[in-house]
């Protein structure tokens, strides 16, 4: 093993490799509930070529490689379940190009969401990307790889739908370019009109290669943003409310939340509606369209717009939302995890009832947090429970609640988002056998030695 350490030092330099206890401890866990498992090595490459050399070495020695971005998925996706190498991508973090007119950016594999946001604000103030409500150290590539969602998801779909090209180091060491960038200097399309090969890597959770560059669509940044919050106490109305809201096509982003604390929020379901405009007139027009779309609920007294006082608006408008991090520590002791299955909007009532039912059953503090994906094509329903890390019994109760959520989500016809290894297994058990076989063939072809993030999407 000391040969491996020396070999890694030779690739990246001794400052960027460790097999010491401290690093192995840190890289052996994530902030969620999964059991830790330590890597043998932690390595921080700086270039695609270094990544290539590391992967080639690992493939030759049949040592696992787990690429890691911010490590914030909470579902154990970057815990090295079979040891080996954790490849921390944070040093590969350049923003390589912004094509302002074609509205795309090319970033390196470890570029952070916060870094990209700041860069665009400073250098391209008319452009923005779909920033997720994760801490700013989350990385752009990892977010796309897990099919993350962001502030523009209601308009443009999953953040992975916004990918315009990839550079990938395959598990066998080849460097592939995916999309228009494979034949051109432009990164405007990840596939069309050619075969779209990005699906070999997006959603695979790092099991089919290491993404070292990514093209990503950018969108117009409007000058003004504002927020309205529509409230109803009838969860059964939420799907209709979403249908009507998305029909207006006036909205930047829609989030739904329900929680029992503080008391002013209990018993109700809150639909946060974010609106943008380049002028007050544009903003007012959009607001009126939205109000009119929901007027019938106001007339029936089943729903209404909450008065969002000026001092409360920044809480709703900030990107990413800091309030999520505050909720994460509401029990003190820093424990927070959620299961966020992707389900139909019509499942909202059942999901919200299940959320509250499990909170009672397991004596937990909860929050339901939903992001609308596309024009109500589906939603991410986050079943969030907090816990005190010093309270092992409470942590166990959260695990049990989330396990029930996982089963429930599949029964509802949904899919797991950023699934744990167990949730992946649950999905594969239900998957069409030929589809599963196809996944196995793809994995076997790309990663014949099974070195990439092993135990994830492991078919058979």
């Amino acid at each position, binding site marked *: 093993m000391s040969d491996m350490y020396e070999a890694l030092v030779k690739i990246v330099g001794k400052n960027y490799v460790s097999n010491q206890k401290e690093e192995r401890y840190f890289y052996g866990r994530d902030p969620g509930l999964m059991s830790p498992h330590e890597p043998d090595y932690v390595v921080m490459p700086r270039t695609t070529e270094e990544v290539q050399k590391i992967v080639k070495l690992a493939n030759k020695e049949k040592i696992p490689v787990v690429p890691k971005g911010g490590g914030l998925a909470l579902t154990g996706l970057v815990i090295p379940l079979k040891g080996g190498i954790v490849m921390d991508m944070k040093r590969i973090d350049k923003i390589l190009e912004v094509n302002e007119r074609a509205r795309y950016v090319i970033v390196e594999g470890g570029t952070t969401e916060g870094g990209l946001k700041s860069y665009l604000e400073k250098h391209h103030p008319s452009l923005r990307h779909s920033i997720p409500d994760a801490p700013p150290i989350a990385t752009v590539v990892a977010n796309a790889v897990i099919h993350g969602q962001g502030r523009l998801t209601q308009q443009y779909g999953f953040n992975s739908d916004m990918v315009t090209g990839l550079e990938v180091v395959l598990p066998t060491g080849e460097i592939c370019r995916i999309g228009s960038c494979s034949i051109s200097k432009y990164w405007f399309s990840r596939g069309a009109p050619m075969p779209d090969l990005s699906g070999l890597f997006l959603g695979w959770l790092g099991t089919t290669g290491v993404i070292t560059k990514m093209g990503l669509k950018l969108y117009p940044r409007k000058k003004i943003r504002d927020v309205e919050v529509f409230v109803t106490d009838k969860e059964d109305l939420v799907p209709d409310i979403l249908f009507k809201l998305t029909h207006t096509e006036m909205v930047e982003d829609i989030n739904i939340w329900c929680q029992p604390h503080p008391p002013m929020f209990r018993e109700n379901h809150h639909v946060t509606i974010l609106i943008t405009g380049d002028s007050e007139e544009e903003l007012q027009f959009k607001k009126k369209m939205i109000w009119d779309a929901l007027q019938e609920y106001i007339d029936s*007294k*089943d729903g209404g717009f909450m*008065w969002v*006082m*000026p001092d409360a608006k920044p809480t709703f408008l900030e990107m990413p939302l800091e309030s999520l991090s505050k909720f994460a520590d509401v029990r003190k002791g820093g424990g927070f995890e959620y299961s966020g299955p992707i389900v139909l909007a019509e499942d909202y009532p059942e999901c919200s009832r299940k959320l509250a039912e499990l909170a009672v059953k397991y004596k937990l503090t909860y929050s339901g947090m939903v992001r609308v994906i596309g024009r109500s094509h589906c939603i991410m329903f986050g079943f969030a429970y907090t816990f005190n890390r010093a309270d092992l019994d409470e942590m166990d109760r959260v695990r049990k609640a989330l396990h029930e959520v996982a089963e429930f989500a599949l029964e509802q016809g949904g899919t797991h988002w950023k699934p744990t290894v167990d949730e992946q297994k649950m999905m594969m058990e239900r998957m069409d056998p030929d589809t599963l076989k196809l996944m196995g063939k793809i994995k076997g072809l790309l990663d014949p030695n099974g070195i990439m993030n092993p135990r994830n999407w492991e078919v058979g």
Partner: protein
Amino acid sequence: MLALEFDETKCANCKAVSCLVKCQYMDLDKDEAKIEWQKVIKSEDSPVLDACTTCYACEEYCPFGNHPFYLIVERQEERGMFTAPRPITKQWINMCEPAGKFRLGKVKEQALSFCFIPALRSLARGRLFESALPSWILGAEFFCNVVYLHFAKTSVIKDRLPKITENIEKQGIKELICLHDECYGSFNSLAPAYGIKVPFKTTHYFEYLYNKLKEHKDAIKPLNVEVAYQRNCSARLVPETDHFVDDIFGLIGVDRVEREYDGENALCCGEIIRMVKGYKLADDVQKRNIDDIVNAGAEYCVFNCPFCYMALAEKMAKRGIKPIHIIDLCKLAIGEKPALEVG
């Protein structure tokens, strides 16, 4: 259960029926008003109950102090009506439920009440509050609850207000200086109307400010500005405090512009109307109000209620009017910095 002290005979003999005829949101002549008001009294169906925007103005229009608005609210609740959407009503009721999280200064026999509005604590700074300041109360336990009139929920008021007065009394307070106009209205209009005893003296902060300004007369530099005054809904409950506005303006060298929507004809801030009736009427009310202020040539709009300030400050600033709370205006006159700013 507490009951509204309402005298039907006063209405029977009333010829003007000002409560409804003067209403800014209903169009009834005297005869129609008389008929509809009798229906309200007899607890019969009346369009009045639906049309009410809960602006409180009829409380002031009634020359007999017979509490027409409180009666309308009683009748709305008896019918299970929701003025605002039900979830919004729940939200407001839950928001101000006492939960043992109140805050206290070094409470003495005389104390400032910041109600349940932290912004009032920010306002009450500087020389005008130096002597009174260490003694203050803030929290849902001291919240006046008048707001539930907007939501047709006198039951909440009847349930909570007696406990609120008890909570204040338990602090050993003999004189409460109400920085929230609505608190003063609660103790001096609503409580007596329902036979709720208020075992302490209440002083409106206008009176307190007026007296403090007189104490600091030498520090006053006349502001020499033209201002409009945004009269709020709860001012309708205690119109006897209104003269202090002009008294204060006189002391600090401020001219109150003449305009259409002032005094009895004042327009409310519109945000409650937004919740109760929707955006169209709310936008119309706010536009008329701000247009009126602009056309009257005011430089500042002076606020009594912090919620009116929140509702209108930004909109006024965009039209070139400087919004300012009356406490901040007084501080400005003695060379101190305002606490509330737009944006």
